[in-house]
């Protein structure tokens, strides 16, 4: 029984992990290559979910809505990059934090106006609603398996893009040494726009995938953003590989903590105290990990090479 529970919780952790990866992949690229702290990355996650919900209402098809939401988020991302962020690359991080947290407020209020104060309805189509009995005795939601599959596919795609293509080479070069890259005659501005657009679309994909699981409402991106920052700090800023491994690590640690911490603590203290303290301590685990990484390996677990 416990072994089966462990497998199920591993799946849960994996699912949370790939979700976080979708968010942090863009964040780590933008931070690592463009040296830009983009607090509004969570807003793009929210924009993705909102677009999916609105397109669902419009088209009536979840798949179509999801497919339309991606270019829509990409477009929003490009507009942000061109209108707001371009002026910020040369400024220091504090200015970037100020401007992009202004963007958070802007998007929260804008989507409040578009979608109303109530949470939007975003439900799964019947063919994604069922459960699969991959573990005997406990049916697992089909949609969460789809999330894992899509997340892993995106990770593979990104890996191939970064390691096997010319664009990927430029991205890696940008993460290692930006000045040298532009000295070699690469159009860094265009690269920045492309990278930001890619990151925005990944965040949007995260939002679309999360939409049916969580409530689609104004401000939904902020919690995810914090976790995404934890991921890129642990993984090493600018590293896709680091983001992937750290996202899975955090997904698993957070899930296992929530699943087993209370019972583990029950071994050393009273049952009631463990039930109360368990979830609280479990929610601190990932931050403890981050503090540990910052102390022993401040550059992150897998920083980009050449730095």
């Amino acid at each position, binding site marked *: *029984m416990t072994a*089966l*529970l462990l497998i*199920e*919780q591993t799946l*849960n*952790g994996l*699912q*949370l992990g790939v979700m976080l990866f979708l968010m942090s992949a863009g964040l780590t690229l933008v931070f690592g290559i463009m040296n830009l702290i983009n607090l509004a990355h969570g807003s793009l996650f929210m924009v993705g979910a909102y677009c999916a919900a609105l397109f669902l209402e419009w088209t009536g098809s979840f798949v179509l809505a999801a497919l339309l939401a991606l270019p829509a988020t990409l477009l929003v991302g490009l507009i942000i990059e061109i209108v707001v962020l371009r002026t910020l690359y040369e400024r220091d991080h504090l200015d970037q934090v100020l401007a992009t947290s202004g963007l958070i407020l802007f998007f*929260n*209020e804008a989507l*409040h106006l578009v979608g*109303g*104060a*109530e*949470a*939007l*309805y*975003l*439900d*799964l189509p019947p063919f994604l*609603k*069922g*459960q699969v009995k991959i573990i005997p005795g*406990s*049916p697992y*939601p089909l*949609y*969460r398996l789809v999330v894992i599959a899509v997340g892993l596919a995106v990770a593979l795609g990104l890996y191939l893009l970064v390691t096997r293509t010319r664009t990927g080479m430029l991205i890696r070069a940008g993460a290692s040494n930006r000045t040298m890259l532009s000295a070699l005659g690469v159009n860094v501005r265009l690269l920045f726009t492309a990278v930001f657009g890619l990151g925005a679309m990944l965040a949007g994909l995260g939002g679309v995938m999360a939409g*049916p*699981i*969580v*409530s*689609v*409402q*104004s*401000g*939904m991106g902020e*919690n995810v953003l914090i976790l995404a920052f934890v991921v890129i700090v642990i993984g090493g800023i600018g590293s896709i590989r680091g983001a992937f491994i750290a996202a899975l690590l955090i997904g698993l640690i957070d*899930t*296992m903590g*929530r*699943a087993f911490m*209370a019972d583990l603590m029950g071994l050393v203290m009273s049952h009631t105290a463990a*039930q*109360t303290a368990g*979830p*609280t301590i479990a*929610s601190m685990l990932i931050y403890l990990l981050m503090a540990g990484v910052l102390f022993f390996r401040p550059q992150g677990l897998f920083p980009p090479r050449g730095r």
Partner: protein
Amino acid sequence: MKARTIALAAAFALSAALPALAADKVKIGYVTTLSKGPAAIGKQMQDAVELALDHLGKKMGGLPVEIVYADDEFDPEIGKLRSEELVKKDKVDFVSGFIWSNVLLQARQPIFKANTFLIGSNAGPHELAGKECSPWFFSTSWQNDQMPEAMGKYMTDAGIKRVYVLSPNYPAGRDMVAGFKRYYKGEIVGEILTPWPQHADWSAEFAKIRATEPKPEAVFVFYPGGAGINFVKQYAQAGLKDTIPLYNVFTTDSTTLKAQGDAALGLLSTMSWGADLQNDANKRFVADFKKKYGYIPSFYAAQAYDSIMLIASAVKAVNDKIEDKDAVRKALKASDFASVRGQVKFNNNHYPIENFYIQEVVKDADGTYDTRIKGTVFLAHADSYGAKECKMK
């Protein structure tokens, strides 16, 4: 220099004398959440307050009414700051509103200190019902424990023997669990308090519930607002809805039902009010609310409406002399108004003694989701703290 000092002293004397002058209007500060995730709830309360003003002809007794809305931004510290501004800067005669127990507990002190009445429209923390009960506080909602008490009794009567309990870890969440345990006589096979408000995914908890031996016959939860939307959707997606029935308080209401959709259909909850409650005041409130705003009001709206009506009844009873605080208190305590919740009296701690109903989520003919009252669990139910811990008479 001397002349200025005298002028200043005179000004102070005057301003000190001012409150004794007769009021020319009733000024009410209304604190609720108008931004961030729970803004939908605040919007409903604001709509209900405006409807109450319409019904009153914008007058209480012979005095015109002015409402100052304040946004607590879902944050106790900001709620406290706004409340301080209301009593000090706006000099309101009454403060009302408050969705969240943690915000109310933080914001009450400046209001009480300014000798201003606070009419709670929703939050009902046990602190304010028991040892820290206040002559300045009245509630037109309930004490937090009362709904889960009703659910505990309902589930005991329904013969449910083993229950798993989930709730967020904040003052109201802990009250809900305490209230449930007070009246539920079966076995609680598991209990999880999740972090609040950031917790958004219950897959790990669901796996734990499924693996619990002996198997729970039901799950009881308290997840208000957006958390409730997440929870109910995920519970259905996990296939648990059909295998372990879900009972709730504050998790399925008209602010969440649209986003929950079919996942909420058939779920049971307890509440002191329903849109289909049959009394004249409620019929008028619900019909006019739907006509004016085009959606079905939730209990948040009903309680906000009652807050304004309670204040109006007191202003009228003291013949507009709202500066006589003792008389106002007596008039509020009399609860002499047509509440949309039917017959309501106040307990010694100024929390309501009222009926509690079991409600089911249904889908109307036009496809909108709504709750229907299935039966009465408690008649004239008083909270569990007033008689025992509150020293007020």
